């Protein structure tokens, strides 16, 4: 089983506060890995390190065997690391369709084409339609992103990530801030991606029950440290996790 991404002792601190503390993990190719931990544990910060939004104070990061510690976010996206954001991060005054098409277009070789009308690129339109169908957003294609309900924005976020066709998907709390009725639809989408079987998925979630059924491996962060890793079953029965996290009312 190949390792797609690996961190060695990555640490990042903000002023005196250590948000991620010497974390070493291996993300296995085509597996479903979940990261759990209470609020403020450093999960999003850890993703920022993987995707290049932040640089570690210490330690190094490898993607497919190559050291990417110093690579920018743009470069890492091109290498195959895609991520969604916990706080919805889309293009508010563009339509849902345009949002996704921008992601599709970024994978094509026409990034700087300025003399051709975008309608000429039928393949972009088709791909965009395909992805919108996958996340059940076809009906909203022509709405402005700013007019979507919260749950729909989350789906749009995932659609843009899928369009990047990266091997690795980093999903940061895709159900954050959703109403209960909206959650199952997102779970369906994630199941659908998992079913396709050609991607490696890393999911941050602090709702334990949601990820137990899906995950191959679970990593537990607590105060910036990796305190446990294992199968969902091992994690549920892990004493350190229970006292630190589950027992703590989380």
């Amino acid at each position: 089983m190949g390792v797609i991404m690996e961190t060695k002792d990555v640490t990042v601190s903000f002023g005196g506060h250590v948000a991620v503390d010497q974390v070493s993990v291996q993300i296995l190719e085509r597996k479903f890995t979940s990261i759990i931990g209470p609020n403020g544990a450093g999960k999003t910060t850890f993703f920022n390190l993987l995707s290049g939004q932040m640089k570690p104070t210490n330690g190094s990061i490898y993607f497919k065997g190559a050291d990417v510690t110093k690579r920018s976010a743009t470069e890492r996206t091109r290498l195959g690391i895609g991520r969604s954001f916990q706080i919805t991060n889309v293009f508010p005054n563009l339509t849902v369709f345009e949002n996704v098409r921008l992601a599709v277009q970024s994978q094509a070789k026409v990034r700087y084409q300025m003399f051709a009308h975008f309608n000429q690129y039928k393949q972009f339109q088709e791909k965009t339609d395909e992805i919108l169908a996958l996340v059940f957003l076809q009906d909203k294609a022509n709405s402005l992103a700013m007019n979507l309900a919260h749950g729909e924005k989350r789906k749009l976020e995932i659609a843009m990530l899928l369009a990047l066709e990266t091997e690795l998907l980093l999903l940061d709390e895709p159900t954050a801030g959703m109403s209960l009725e909206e959650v199952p639809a997102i779970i369906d989408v994630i199941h659908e991606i998992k079913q396709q079987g050609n991607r490696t998925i890393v999911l941050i979630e602090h709702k334990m029950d949601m990820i137990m059924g899906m995950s191959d491996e679970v990593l537990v962060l607590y105060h910036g440290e990796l305190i446990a890793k294992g199968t969902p079953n091992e994690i549920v029965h892990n004493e350190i996790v229970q006292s630190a996290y589950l027992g703590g009312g989380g």
Partner: protein
Amino acid sequence: MNIQNLEKSTWFYLCITLLLFILPMVITERSLQFIIIQIFIFGIFAMSYDLLLGYTGIISFGHVIFFGLGAYTTGIALDRLGATIGSLVIGAFIGVLLAAFVSLLVGMLTLRLKSHFYAMLTLALSGLFLVAAEKWRPMTGGNDGFTFRLPDIIREPNHLYILCLIFFVLIFFGLRRLTNSPFGKVLMAIRENENRTTSLGYKVVYYKVIASIVSGVVASLAGVLYALSLRFVNTGVFATDLTIDVLLMTIIGGVGTLIGPIIGAGLVELAHHWLSSLADVHWIFERWIILYGTLYILVVIFFPLGIIGTIRSKLAGRNK
């Protein structure tokens, strides 16, 4: 938006173009023709500005640099090399080249900065150009400027009108295509959310630099035509007033569109003309700048998104 829609609007614009070509036969009065020529020129200038402000979200206070470069190189070439089409082409070409070079340089040095730094730096830089033009008297004639003769073929006002109209139309359709291209959509993405654009894998700085080069080149062409229309250049082409004018035109008409800046240019030019001619009626109109300010405030109150933007959102609201 679908193709049918676009074709319809293209037809519409082509009809307008045709009307504009016929216009000088209907409106033969020189002073009116002059105003329309100014509207074409400032329409071009304002469109180029909106490519930065409205499409890419870059705030520049130094856009006159490119306008001024085009105006000076044209004036100097016609003055020194003689009033021929050859020297006009040379002057315009050098203006465009300089504009491209300066915008490339400024872009590479500063577009990585936060937007307010960029705004301040461009303002300072335009001040630098203004001072340089004042001091380099042997070349520029300083504050007083200099007059020059036009090549015979465009001394006929109708011909100058047609020349300006041709540039206006070509630039309009060119920018329209650019803003509807894959490249143009990335510019809008940058305006909307720069970080997100980066994380989609776009190299944002390249896009900004390319946009500012295109915008600078177009602005320099406006400057070329401006010099031709006045047969005179002075340091006014680098003045901050002009920056404010183009900002107003873009905002009044509606940012993020091409028609908006054109309409804005028309309104501002007409307001200039009309309000200053009212001075004969009553002395208060001599203070036309006050009225102009009042007019601007009224527009901002009643058309918060600019004229085109407000109409669009009204139409969109009705369709819901």
